């Protein structure tokens, strides 16, 4: 007797029921999505009119998980950016150089003139009085330890002192840079009020940003394009000569009004110290940005202003001098105003950028993709059409060849589809266009397990026409082939998942889920149906 223990029958039915439970919300996609959105808004206290009623349109005892549609299906913007983290090292070097230069110059009589020699990503210090090199090294180390700066390594090399960030310090800086970049990107995108952006770190130094919806493309790019690095510098000279050669610790930057400024490279304070920024107006009533510095920044700025009264200082945003006002008097509170021919909108934007903080390093766009909602909808429609037709063709063909058994295979195939959708909903993975291709491919390949079983049953029946025995043997003997065949496909899909990028991963996921569910439905689902059929009709022969 082809038996199937009661607990196994029960388990199969339970799993199928689970599948239906989790797949069902997807049949009411927009209704569930609206209800979910309304609930999400209520949770963060940003409920809109009608959200209370919307949130109850989908019963809470039902699953509200949906298959995420990828950007290629729902339309939206995808951007992959690289964080230029090496630039952060250079900033650290520049800042540290400013400190040790001052320390060494205080002992000018002993060391002679001090300069920094150009090197790749490091500080190389040269002093005029070479015999005091060892003394200079000790002075630098002393300065570093006073500052608590343990992240540098020092060495005397070839008549100079080389200062490097240690590898440990570099990886620590990298982590901080990435964490901060992610945080800032998230704040900026959130500030733009876009819907459910996905922002995640990819690999060592990349950030992937997915924003559904089409309207916000330019806005997203505008927000990411600016580093919003604000620094205040001592002005050394105002000039019109843009080809002027400047010293190693100086900067020549253009100003918004077309002139050029020669500046001290080491910043007095940077945007990191800004605690608040808002739209304001300057003394001429023009739009400007008010900002406030934290205690440390305020102290540094205060010290600087007290020693540079009646000298100009430059407000630099992303390598451009916005303005260079004269210091009228000592400024103790750390409050200042940036003016620079802004429109109200520009000033508001700048305030938002300064408030969310500067990106620690510039971002380079490596990849960007914009899918219009029409294109996405067309893809969904085409994919759905292809899946339905594939399902119909395969089902009809199975029915024609295997008759009654074909019905079982088709019911299993149908449940297989339900389980795939349920699986995608439960793990919350994203369905992409290649993912749809994976599902359609699964439709064709899923019946393979049933074909193997049915063919084996046919062989066994031909050898010895005892139906029950043939079915039993057919299932048992086909299993080895089914497992081998599917494990190998699973290997290919898994490799694709780990190496694939973006949408192709979606294909690998649906393929993997499809392989697992199809083995389950084809082996156990079909078997249950057959057992029930044999009990019910007690057929005398195979029928195909």
């Amino acid at each position, binding site marked *: 007797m082809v038996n199937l223990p009661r607990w196994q029958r029960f388990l199969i039915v339970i799993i199928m029921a689970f599948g239906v439970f989790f797949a069902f919300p997807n049949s009411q996609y927009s209704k569930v999505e609206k209800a979910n959105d309304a609930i999400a808004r209520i949770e963060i206290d940003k409920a809109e009119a009608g959200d209370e009623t919307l949130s109850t349109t989908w019963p809470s005892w039902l699953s509200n998980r949906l298959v995420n549609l990828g950007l290629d299906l729902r339309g939206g913007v995808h951007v992959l950016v690289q964080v230029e983290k090496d630039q952060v090292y250079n900033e650290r070097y520049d800042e540290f150089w400013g400190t040790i230069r001052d320390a060494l110059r205080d002992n000018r009589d002993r060391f002679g003139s001090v300069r920094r020699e150009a090197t790749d990503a490091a500080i190389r210090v040269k002093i005029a009085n070479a015999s005091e090199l060892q003394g200079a090294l000790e002075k630098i180390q002393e300065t570093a330890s006073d500052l608590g700066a343990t992240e540098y390594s020092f060495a005397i090399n070839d008549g100079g002192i080389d200062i490097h960030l240690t590898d440990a310090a570099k990886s620590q800086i990298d982590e901080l840079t990435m964490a901060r970049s992610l945080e800032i990107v998230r704040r900026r995108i959130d500030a733009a009020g876009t819907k459910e952006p996905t922002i995640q770190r990819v690999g060592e130094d990349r950030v992937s940003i997915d924003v559904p919806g089409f309207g916000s493309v330019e806005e997203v790019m505008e927000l990411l394009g600016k580093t919003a690095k604000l620094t205040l510098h001592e002005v050394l000279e105002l000039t019109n000569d843009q080809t002027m050669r400047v010293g190693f610790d100086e900067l020549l930057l253009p100003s918004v009004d077309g002139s050029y400024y020669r500046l001290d490279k080491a910043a007095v304070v940077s945007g990191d110290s800004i605690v608040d920024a808002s739209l304001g107006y300057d003394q001429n009533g023009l739009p400007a940005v008010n900002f406030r510095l934290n205690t440390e920044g305020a102290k540094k700025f205060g010290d600087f202003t007290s020693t540079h009264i009646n000298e100009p200082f430059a407000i630099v945003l992303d390598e451009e001098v916005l303005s260079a006002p004269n210091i009228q008097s000592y400024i103790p509170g750390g409050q200042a105003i940036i003016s620079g021919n802004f429109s109200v909108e520009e000033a508001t934007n700048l305030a938002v950028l300064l408030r969310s903080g500067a990106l620690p390093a510039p971002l380079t766009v490596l*990849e*960007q993709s914009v899918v219009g909602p029409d294109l996405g909808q067309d893809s969904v429609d085409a994919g759905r059409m292809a899946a339905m037709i594939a399902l119909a063709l395969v089902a009809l063909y199975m029915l024609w060849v295997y008759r009654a058994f074909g019905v079982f295979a088709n019911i299993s195939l149908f449940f297989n589809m339900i389980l795939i959708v349920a699986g995608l909903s439960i793990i919350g993975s994203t369905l992409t266009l290649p993912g749809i291709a994976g599902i359609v491919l699964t439709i064709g390949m899923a019946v393979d397990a049933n074909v193997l079983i049915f063919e084996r049953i046919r062989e066994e029946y031909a050898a010895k026409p005892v139906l029950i025995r043939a079915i039993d043997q057919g299932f048992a003997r086909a299993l080895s082939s089914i497992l081998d065949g599917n494990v*190998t*496909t699973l290997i*290919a899909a898994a490799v694709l998942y780990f190496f694939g990028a973006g949408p192709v991963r979606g294909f690998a996921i649906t393929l993997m889920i499809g392989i697992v569910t199809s083995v389950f439905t084809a082996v156990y689902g079909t078997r249950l149906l057959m057992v029930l059929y044999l009990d019910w009709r007690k057929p005398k022969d195979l029928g195909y």
Partner: protein
Amino acid sequence: MQKLFSTKTQIPFMSMAKWCVRVSAILVIVSIALFLIKGLNYGIDFRGGTEIKIEVSETISVADVREQVSNIVAGEVSVITESGADAGKQGMKIRIAADGAEAAMSEDAITAVKSELTNKIEGSEVRGVTSIGGAVSSELVQKGIMAIGLTLIAIGIYIWLRFEWQFSMGAIVALFHDVSLTIGIFSLLGMTFDLSIVAAILAIIGYSLNDTVVVYDRIREKLSMSKSEDVDIVINRGINETLRRTAMTSLTTLLAIAALYVFGGSELRGFSFAMLWGVCVGTYSSIFIASPILTYFGLDRGDKPKSTTKFADIDA
């Protein structure tokens, strides 16, 4: 159909295979030569660049669009038509080469192209833009090659563990054949080779292997049952006995992919074409290459029947 592949077929596959192996060897060499000489028409995922999908009035020609875009961008511009547009309109895909830049095309440049199109081309509407920089695309090439190589190795090891090493060699040879021929046809027809085609190749590997393993399973079973018979005869019987299943599964898979090719939209056309071709090639290779070639590797007679029934017993 049912008659054609009756359980009792006695097709002499082994003698046919001698010719098939030679023909296949030539086809593989031709494919590799095509790949080396003519190369592949890589999509922007692999060589970097920008792709803009637009819809324009039916009266606009591809040359018009190419000229307009060429006027304002530096890279080489190519334009092809696509099906599936609304009535009275036609779809086009504009591809702008990256010129080796690490980063993607700048937003300003893309905006410039978009406004040029909207202003100068009648009824044009931008439906989607994708831009990939050289840094990403060269990585994708490496990853693609690694993925295919790793899959072949992992599968070789799995088959080796479950069968004998000869089966593993046979399967790898057949898969190499399938991959080469798929790359060959893309080179020959000059079709766009992008990331989705790599996905298709991996799916083809999975499919072809699934097919091969089923035949192998049967051959192993037959080998351990009859120790006196000639290996060739046993292999031939194994192929014949699984022929119905091979044909059924290929047909159902082809039906599904054909539906995808015809109705799945232009985005999936390259992928489904590769799959259609790959399933045919893969089915052929598991019958005419993977199994007959076992004799060349000096297959052991089943003196040491490895876990033939290891899994089969579980549910018996």
